[in-house]
Each structure stands twice: as structure tokens, then as C-alpha cells.
């Protein structure tokens, strides 16, 4: 390219390229996007490889790391063009928008050159390894250790609730490197291979039968200094970058996401109409009221996301306002799940030829949305303390060296899958 290409010219080139190279979405057959499905990840890598080969990967990532080095207006224009095509959406979160974005902020030159490029080529998937079996919302209270010896670092401990780690190559792992200082001051972030000696991975089977989440056990995994992201004992700052980028991604405010479609299509209008007809209540005013409420709530959600994300961009709301969007996803999901259950009635709990038992089964994992990515209660704390500026909760471990703080025992036993 000699001169700078205009957004319009870029969009026109993308339009032509997409038509020739990317599969079109079939409205009636939603593309495979389940994160628990190995095939979906292979498919995403393949699509990403196509984007890279065509020169449309990493539009907002710098050129030296394999991107195009363009501003967000080009990404937005590309998203418009890509709307009717199958895109590797599951790579957006966390690989591009959280992990690569954070590496770009705080990674070493080598880490950026190696990992951002590999991810853009569709050769590498990254995850976050943060939560632990012994911890819940208290992330900084984690107990996975990284001990230093002559040859480098030795990792021991366990991580959990990592989305689709089975399909990933590397993880950003937060570990305790100094237990003699208050909890936030003794943590370090490592870029860790997932499939390496000393790492055992287990998929977590959830109540609804899905198994996209994983648990990883670390037994003497060895890493060298090149794996450290940011500085030793400054891991909480790096985690802050991850969290910052996660909030932006949730608020659809990340320039590193490519493609805008819904990753999952449980939102289709037809669902509730079919459900009401199958349940024999399509003409029942109460059912119509309940379904209308669900449809309205989805519209409210879309407007809320747009409103809060734009307020975060222009600074009217602080970045912590991403928690408002997070909390609202629980609200919408609860309403959808509960409404379906109400409409299905007995058919949701005892199956017949209409096959509505799936409604009851979905109900069983209703709380998943209110636990993943930080619980609803944590989101409420964040909104209260960092959006409204109300007094912080009392914490018994504030300013206390971590090894003098009471915490849950490390869970060493490995539960075997049934």
C-alpha cells in the first residue's frame, strides 16, 4: 500500500474479500459456536487463519505484532461488512480483547512478537488462569505458589473456571511469589503453557451437561524468567489490566474484537412463541404478558449496553460501570429462564413427545450467569463502591502479610470425573 487507505476503500476491499473467502451465515442453521466443543475451536482457528491470510486479522493491533495498525473506525467498518459471515467470534474473548490486549500493555517485546502474532495467525489461543478452587470472589487471596530456584520458577497449585482452557495453548496465570507481604503485593503474572509437563487439565462438568470450563492442577511446572508478564510481585497491576480489558470487552468497547454477531443464538424470537404453542398457552393473556416482558427486557438490555458503553467511552461513567452491564445479564437471563419454566409448566419437568424437559434442565443451571466472571454480589459491590463511591466493605486482610491471614486450605485431592 502506498498511501493510507480510506475507511471506505478498506470496507469495499473487505466486502469483496469476505464474499470470496468467508462462509456466509445460514439464518436457519446457526453456526457452531459452543465453547465446550473441540470442533468449534478448530473451526475458529481455521477461520482466523483465513482472515490472516487475507490481510484482515488484528485490524487494531500494531503491524510489528502481525496486525494492521489501523484505528477503530476501520474495525467498525469491517464489522459492518462481516455481519452476514461466519466469524471466529469465540477468539474475541478472552484471546484478543483481554489476553492479547493486556500483553500489548505490559508484555515484553518477545512476548508480544511471539504470542500476539501467533494468536492473529490463528495458531494460538490464550486464556486467563485466575480463579482457584479455594478462593471465590477474593481473587487476590489466591494460594497457587511460584517459588524461585536457581533455574527459574516452580509452580504448584490449582486454577479453576478457566473458559475452554482445553482448547488453549497458553494461559495468563496469577501466582503468589511472596507470602510475607499483604496479599496484593506478593503476586506475579506468568505466561504459562497449558499442555506441558506438570500441568494436568480436567474439564468441569456442569449441571446442564456443558463442559467448557476447566480446572488445572500444577505440580512442579517449571517456567523461566521469560514467562513473567510485567514485574515480579506486580502481578496485581497486570491483573488490573486484564480486568480493565474484560470490562471494555463486556461493554462492547474493545477495538480488538472482530465481528459483532451474537456468539450464541438463544435469543431468537421464535423460541418463546414455539414454547407457548407447544405448551398450549399461546392464546393465554398471562403467557403473552410474560413473553412480551422477555422481549422488552432484551430490548432494554441492548439499549443499556449501548448507553453504558458510550458513557464509559466519554467518561460520564467510570470503567467500573462495566459491572452494570454484567449484572444486567443476570437479570435478563433469570427472566428468560424463569419465564420459560413458567410457560412450560409440568412439561418442563416430566418429558413427553414435545421435548420440553430441556426447559427444566436449563433452569437447573440458572445461577451460572450470576457466578461467572465475578458473582452478582461482587458486581453490586463494585457498582456501590466504584460507581456510586459508597464506603468500602471491611476487610480483615487489608494491610496484613498474606501468611498471617486466615484462608481456605489448599485442595490437594483430585476429584475424578465419574
Amino acid at each position, binding site marked *: 500500500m502506498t498511501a493510507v487507505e480510506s475507511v471506505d476503500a478498506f470496507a469495499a476491499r473487505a466486502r469483496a474479500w469476505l464474499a470470496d473467502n468467508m462462509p456466509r451465515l445460514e439464518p436457519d442453521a446457526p453456526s457452531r459456536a459452543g465453547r465446550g466443543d473441540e470442533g468449534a475451536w478448530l473451526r475458529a482457528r481455521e477461520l482466523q487463519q483465513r482472515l490472516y491470510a487475507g490481510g484482515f486479522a488484528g485490524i487494531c493491533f500494531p503491524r510489528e505484532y502481525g496486525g494492521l495498525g489501523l484505528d477503530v473506525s476501520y474495525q467498525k467498518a469491517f464489522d459492518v461488512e462481516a455481519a452476514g459471515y461466519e466469524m471466529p467470534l469465540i477468539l474475541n474473548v478472552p484471546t484478543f480483547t483481554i489476553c492479547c490486549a493486556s500483553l500489548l500493555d505490559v508484555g515484553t517485546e518477545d512476548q508480544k512478537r511471539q504470542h500476539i502474532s501467533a494468536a492473529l495467525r490463528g495458531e494460538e489461543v490464550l486464556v486467563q488462569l485466575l480463579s482457584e478452587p479455594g478462593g471465590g470472589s477474593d481473587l487476590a487471596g489466591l494460594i497457587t505458589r511460584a517459588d524461585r530456584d536457581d533455574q527459574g520458577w516452580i509452580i504448584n497449585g490449582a486454577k479453576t473456571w478457566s473458559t475452554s482452557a482445553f482448547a488453549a495453548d497458553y494461559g495468563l496465570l496469577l501466582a503468589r511469589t511472596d507470602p510475607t507481604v499483604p496479599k496484593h503485593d506478593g503476586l506475579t503474572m506468568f505466561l504459562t503453557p497449558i499442555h506441558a509437563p506438570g500441568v494436568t487439565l480436567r474439564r468441569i462438568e456442569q449441571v446442564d451437561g456443558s463442559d467448557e470450563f476447566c480446572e488445572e492442577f500444577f505440580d512442579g511446572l517449571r517456567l523461566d524468567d521469560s514467562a513473567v508478564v510485567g514485574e515480579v510481585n506486580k502481578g496485581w497491576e497486570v491483573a488490573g489490566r486484564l480486568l480493565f480489558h474484560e470490562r471494555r470487552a463486556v461493554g462492547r468497547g474493545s477495538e480488538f474484537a472482530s465481528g459483532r454477531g451474537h456468539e450464541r443464538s438463544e435469543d*431468537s*424470537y*421464535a423460541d418463546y*412463541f414455539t414454547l407457548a404453542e407447544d405448551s398450549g398457552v399461546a392464546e393465554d*393473556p398471562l403467557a*403473552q*404478558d*410474560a*413473553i*412480551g*416482558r422477555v*422481549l*422488552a*427486557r432484551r*430490548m*432494554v*438490555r*441492548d*439499549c*443499556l*449496553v*449501548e*448507553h*453504558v458503553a458510550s458513557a464509559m467511552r466519554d467518561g460520564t461513567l467510570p470503567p467500573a*460501570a462495566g459491572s*452494570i452491564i454484567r*449484572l*444486567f445479564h443476570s*437479570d435478563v437471563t433469570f427472566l428468560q429462564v424463569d419465564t420459560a419454566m413458567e410457560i412450560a409448566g409440568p412439561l418442563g419437568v416430566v418429558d413427553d413427545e414435545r421435548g420440553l424437559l430441556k426447559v427444566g434442565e436449563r433452569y437447573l443451571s440458572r445461577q451460572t450467569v450470576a457466578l461467572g466472571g465475578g458473582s452478582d*454480589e461482587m*458486581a*453490586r*459491590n463494585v*457498582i*456501590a*463502591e466504584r*460507581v*456510586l463511591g*459508597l*464506603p468500602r*466493605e471491611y476487610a480483615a486482610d487489608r494491610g496484613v502479610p498474606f501468611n498471617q491471614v486466615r484462608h481456605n486450605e489448599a485442595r490437594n485431592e483430585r476429584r475424578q470425573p465419574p
Partner: protein
Amino acid sequence: MTESSTETELFVATARAFLDRHATLSQHRALHSENRSVDPAWWKQVAELGWTGLLVPEDLGGGNISGSGLHDLAAIAEQIGHTVAPGPLHPVSTVLAGLVDADNRAEHAETIRALVSGNAVAAWAVDEPGRTFDPHQPTLTATAAPEGYRLDGVKDRVEAGAQADLLLVTARAEDGLRQFLIPSDAPGLSVQPQRCIDLVKRYARIEFDAVTVDESSAIGHSANASALIDRQCQVAIVLQCAEAVGILETVLTMTVDWTRDRYSFGRPLASYQAIKHRLADMTMWLHACRGITAGAVDRVAARATDATVWVSAAKSYLGEHAGPIVQDCIQLHGGIGVTWEHDLHLFLRRITLYRNLFGTPSEHHRAIYRSARSSGPAA
């Protein structure tokens, strides 16, 4: 910052300054205790500020600030919510929305100018006694007569019905829906004020007993009456929603401040997690109310084909959430919150009034259901 956004900010700031001076909560209480609704001189000032002309094109004496009169008007409605100001801005704007969209609007240019200048007030007579909000199914009849039409029937809960100089009446004629703009002192017309839950808003029941109107008082024709009524509903409802957003913001800010300042067991109320979590939920609901209202305003302003569905979503969501938010704010205030002396009830009254007029949440849910079911999956 663009020139137009600066101008809009200035317009809104001017509105705020005017309301802070001339529509305070103590003036609200004074109007009530003197059994007055709104001062005509006050209304003239409102017109001079340009609020009445926002939906009206310049060649008819109106004009807007941002390029979208509905956005400007919604911004004013939100400001009105901060002090639950009195005045017939909603009915006048709703009637004007119909008038300027009518194919025979040129014939009504004089009336439009009178409404914009504040010299006349108009009200929309659409609801009927004992019936739910169903603007497309009036039972008031317009029968062909030698002079034009004869109107018979009863309209109910007409905002500013007793104060208005002109009434826009929705009627059923032999050839379908019709709307007529008639003087409120027309022979055969009787007006009966109705008590309402708000302290300064005014509603009336209006009986039409062989009221004769000529064709010149018709607004539009039967072919487009339904579209005009849709537009009037959309404008009326988004103004209510925008005002409710202003109310909620005021009440929630008031409550957050209160919980910070109020000590209990040696701690500020705002330091208790049980209280913080409720305030967090209310903050989320407020932003959701703001978001869906803005979304509805955008679509009505753009005349989107699905604007009515978005308006229903806003109306039902605010209807189900605004009341509970204000009630919970009252709860967090403690006993003072249920006293006449405290201002909270002034806000609760307006919110409650709006919840049940122009369709309840349930009515709008069912409208969304019907619309989505008949149009099928959207994209």
C-alpha cells in the same frame, strides 16, 4: 464538541435554570394548596423558551435546537422530572405532533402558531371511561351531519381537559377513525374535572352530546388517522418516560446522599452491604430506564417502522421499575419518607400516575407479543 451539542447543552441548562427558579417543589406545593394547576403567565414563559415549538417546523412558527425536535423535547421532559413541574407540555406537544403530521396541516397553521406561542392550550381526548388504553378503538362516534359531523360519547382522563382551549378528539366515523380539533366551549360539550394522584396535574372527563363540527376541524383523513394516532401515542409515551428518568435520577441521588449522611449504629447507612446492594440494583435499573428511553426516543425521532414496539418496551420497563425504585428509596429514608412534609411523595405521585396511563406494563407486553409474533423473527 460540535456546535449543535454546545447549543443543546445551553438550551437544557437554560431550561434547568428556569425550572429551578420558577418550578420549585415549594411552588409545586403552593399550587396544590391554592388549588391551582398552572399560571397562564408561566406557560407563556415556557412558550418563549421554545419548548412548545420543538416538534413544529420553522415555517409554522416552531424550531428545534439539535436538528431533532423530539430529542430536544425529551431532554426538557427529563429536566421537568427533576422538580415534577406542572404544565400541559405533554398534551400540547402530543396534539402538535399530530397536527404537524396531518396532510391538511396548512389549514391549521393558525392554531399551530397559537399553541406554539402559548396563547392557546390543547388537550388530546383519547381515553374513554371504564376502558383500557385503546386509542384505535374509540366508541365516541362521529356521525355525518349537514354541517359536517355530530360527535356523541364520553372521553375520560383527558390531561388539561378543563384548562385547554382546544380538544383533539379521537372518534369513530362511518368511514373509519377520525380526529377533530374543536374548541372546548363548543355547544353540547361538558367538562368535569377528575381528581388525580398528582398534586398539580389536571385531568377531566368530557361529554359530547350532539356536538357539531365541520370538515375544517378535521385533522388528517380517515386514511391516515391511524398513523397520526400512533405518532401521538409514541410522543406522549416517550415524554412520560423521559420525565420519569429525570424523576428517578433525582430521587436516587437524594437517597444516595441521605444514606451517606445518615448514621445508624455509629456507621453511615451507606456502609452497610445490604443497603449498598440495593442502591447498586437501583443504579442498574436507572441506567436501564435511561437506555431504553433513549433507544425509544431515537426510533420515534427516526420514524422507524418498529418505533411503537420500542416505545412499548420503554413504557413497560419503566412502568414496572420506576415505582419500585421510588418506593425502595422511601424505605431507605425511613419514617420521614412517608410524611407529607418530605418531598418524596411528590415524585412517587407523578411516577404512579404515568405507570397506569397510556397503557399498563401488561398491556404493552401483550402489544409487543402480538407485534413480534405477527412480524416474525427480527433479523
